[in-house]
């Protein structure tokens, strides 16, 4: 799993690429929580290049959600591909996550 960070007007944008599965969870969770820690609690996770995710990957997303909310921030999931989208809908997490297909809309949501 490869993570790439950017910051746009105080909003952190992290792009993930690869499989988000159990073997990657410790590293990815730590990286993302460190970003939340350092930043202002406003985070976009770009999942376009995440081709496969399992329930341990979902648990990382939930930890991040809890962390940003503790700081009165929010997280937006950007660019879900069909496989990841169907996993998130199946587990009903689309009800608690903000989801966007467009970066400008994701940024607007967090401003």
């Amino acid at each position, binding site marked *: 799993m490869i993570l790439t960070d950017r910051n746009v007007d105080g909003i952190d944008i992290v792009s993930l690429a690869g499989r988000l*599965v159990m073997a990657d969870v410790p590293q990815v969770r730590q990286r993302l929580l460190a970003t939340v820690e350092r930043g202002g609690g406003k985070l976009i996770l770009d999942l376009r290049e995440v081709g496969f995710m399992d329930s341990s990957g979902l648990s990382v997303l939930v930890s991040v959600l809890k962390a940003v909310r503790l700081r009165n921030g929010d997280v937006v999931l950007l660019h879900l591909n069909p496989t990841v989208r169907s996993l998130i809908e*199946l*587990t009903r997490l689309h*009800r*608690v996550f903000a989801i966007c297909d467009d970066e400008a809309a994701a940024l607007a949501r967090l401003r």
Partner: protein
Amino acid sequence: MTQTISLAIESRPECIELLSCAVQGLCRLAGLSAADIAKIELAVVEAVNNALEHAYRNQPGHLIVVEFQLAAGRVSLLVRDGGEAMDPQKLATEEFVEPDPASPETWHMRGRGLTIIKSCVDSVEYQVRDGVNTLAMSRTRGDSGPQSD
């Protein structure tokens, strides 16, 4: 006639992707669509994660075996471990907690694996025999028989 192959890894997270890729290759042979392959791969990964986390409590050095069976009209995948068994009732009684946007206490960190498995395959059964735990999953497929290139 049923064709069978069995795939075995050590109980380490880094080895699970090998199972994933081998299962992908086998599902292609079975003539499954890309969407169906993704579902079966997900079901297998969830079942193997559970064997690693719960049956073996994240200890390396144990064996996890996935048996892939290709029969007319059906693929079956049996995930076996030799660790602590699950209560066989759990499969039926496990209640999925719907996350509520207004109640962060419903945003659970875990408890989605069995729900995902049940949604990805047509049937799931769990059996404990002679110290071996087997989660058996199966899914129908087009009756065109094996496809290969």
